[in-house]
């Protein structure tokens, strides 16, 4: 019997929601890491019991947590090589919260600076991990997208982290700038058709720098923002500086990408080299989340948000919009969702799809609700409705 496990990160802890394949009755566990901001949790596609979690705090910094039993127990994976995994008192060790930016090999100085809110140059300062993306082939390899924007990789289960500094170092860094939520690297997509680690294709996106791609496992990177138009930068079609909110891809069709930009919903059919606007008949094309149906690569989901100054759903109605045509033609999905006096937001990593037939769609709101649809969006029901503000939602399809 199939199962699904929904991993929910909130402002005050993590929650795990489990159901059988019918997705009607749910068991809820949590809060895990109560009181901490849980930016993201994601399971390994190779070993679903391996789950990585980003635990963070403005006071105490960044912690990486790992579970090897599907979220029942957790530990900080970092223990220096050769040392026992506990202290003499039996305390677990952990240094997996250590994210240190690379410096120039020639000068020993920082690789680059970025543009601050006021346009002046500013040094990179590590703040938190926004997104964890486990490898498609190795449970011990995981990527981390961080603020200030950079990508790190661990190949030892989250113990040690090394920056893939070709991204920050390729030359456009001084033109990157923070979005309203900080200068975060929030989206990481791994190409399942890449055959070796050396040729692994990866897409990432940064607010507010844009989308970038590597074709060589993270060694070299290039901006892929042709076709984006952003009125809030001096040159609206600049190579970088665009506030991309999220990107999504159906793994069965690598290279076809969908993007929710600050304003505008976009698609690319050539791995990001060129983008086309597909906002079509959406009531507003500002938003954060975007995702693709697991079995229908042209079926796309967004949640339109009123505006960049009003971060809540349009007209007080919580509506998921679905396009079955890869964009441009959108239908509102409302059954089971509040259609009056609703003023929640759905943040960029807070939507996910399972791989059951029919495809399940999940999203969480800043009002603490997690909604599920077991029929690709036709009908919705809340799994939980009173959690802290939801930062992220991921789902694992088990069995």
């Amino acid at each position, binding site marked *: 019997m199939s199962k699904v496990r929904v991993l929910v990160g909130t402002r005050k802890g993590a929650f795990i929601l489990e159901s059988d394949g019918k997705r009607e009755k749910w068991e809820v566990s949590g809060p895990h890491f*109560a*009181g*901490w901001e849980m930016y993201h949790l994601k399971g390994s596609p190779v070993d679903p019991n391996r789950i990585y979690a980003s635990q963070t*705090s*403005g*006071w*105490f*910094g*960044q*912690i990486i947590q790992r579970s090897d039993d599907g979220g029942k127990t957790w530990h*900080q994976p970092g*223990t220096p090589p050769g040392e026992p995994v506990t*202290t003499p*008192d039996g*305390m*677990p*060790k*952990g*240094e997996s*919260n*250590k994210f*240190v930016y690379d410096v120039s090999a020639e000068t020993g100085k920082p690789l680059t600076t970025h543009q601050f809110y006021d346009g002046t140059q500013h040094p990179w300062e590590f703040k938190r991990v926004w997104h964890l993306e486990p490898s498609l082939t190795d449970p011990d390899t995981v990527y981390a997208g961080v603020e200030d924007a950079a990508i790190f990789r661990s190949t030892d289960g989250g113990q040690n982290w090394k920056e893939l500094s070709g991204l920050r170092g390729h030359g456009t860094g001084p033109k990157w700038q923070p979005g309203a939520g900080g200068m975060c690297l929030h989206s990481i997509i791994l190409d399942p058709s890449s055959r070796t680690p050396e040729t692994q294709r990866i897409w990432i996106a940064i607010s507010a720098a844009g989308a970038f791609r590597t074709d060589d496992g993270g060694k070299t990177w290039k901006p892929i923002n042709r076709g984006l138009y952003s009125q809030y930068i001096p040159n609206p079609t600049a190579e970088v500086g665009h506030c991309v909110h999220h990107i999504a891809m159906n793994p069965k069709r690598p290279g076809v990408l969908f993007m929710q930009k600050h304003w505008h919903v976009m698609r690319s059919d050539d791995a990001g080299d060129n983008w086309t606007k597909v906002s079509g008949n959406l009531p507003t094309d500002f938003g954060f989340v975007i995702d693709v149906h697991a079995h229908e690569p042209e079926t796309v989901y967004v949640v339109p948000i009123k505006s960049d100054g009003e971060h809540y759903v349009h007209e007080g109605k919580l509506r998921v919009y679905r396009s079955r045509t890869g964009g441009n033609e959108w239908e509102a999905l409302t059954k089971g969702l509040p259609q009056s006096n609703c003023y929640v937001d759905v943040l960029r990593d807070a939507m996910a799809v399972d791989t059951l037939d029919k495809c399940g769609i999940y999203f969480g709101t800043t009002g603490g609700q997690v909604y599920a649809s077991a029929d690709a969006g036709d009908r919705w029901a809340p799994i939980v409705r009173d959690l802290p503000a939801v930062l992220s939602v991921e789902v694992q399809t088990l069995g």
Partner: protein
Amino acid sequence: MLPQHLRTLAHVGGDVELDVEDPITQRSVLDALEARYPMLRGTIRDHVTQERRPFLRFFACEEDLSHEPADAPLPKAVASGAEPLVILGAIAGG
């Protein structure tokens, strides 16, 4: 004395007592604390600079020691164990 979130992280129920050799300073106390509870590395001091994280404060004997040099001797009452070195989150951000 640790803030609640760090007590949870380190799996300690109350105040932490440490045996620290002279000189007893912020640095030597934090070194001893992190040696016993390695999961706290990076949560009180920055991993690289070893500077106090900006939203944490150090109090002892009704004094704010947050801006004292890391190698300055702590008050005798703290060194003797009569008074705690209080590490707490600054009241910022709600």
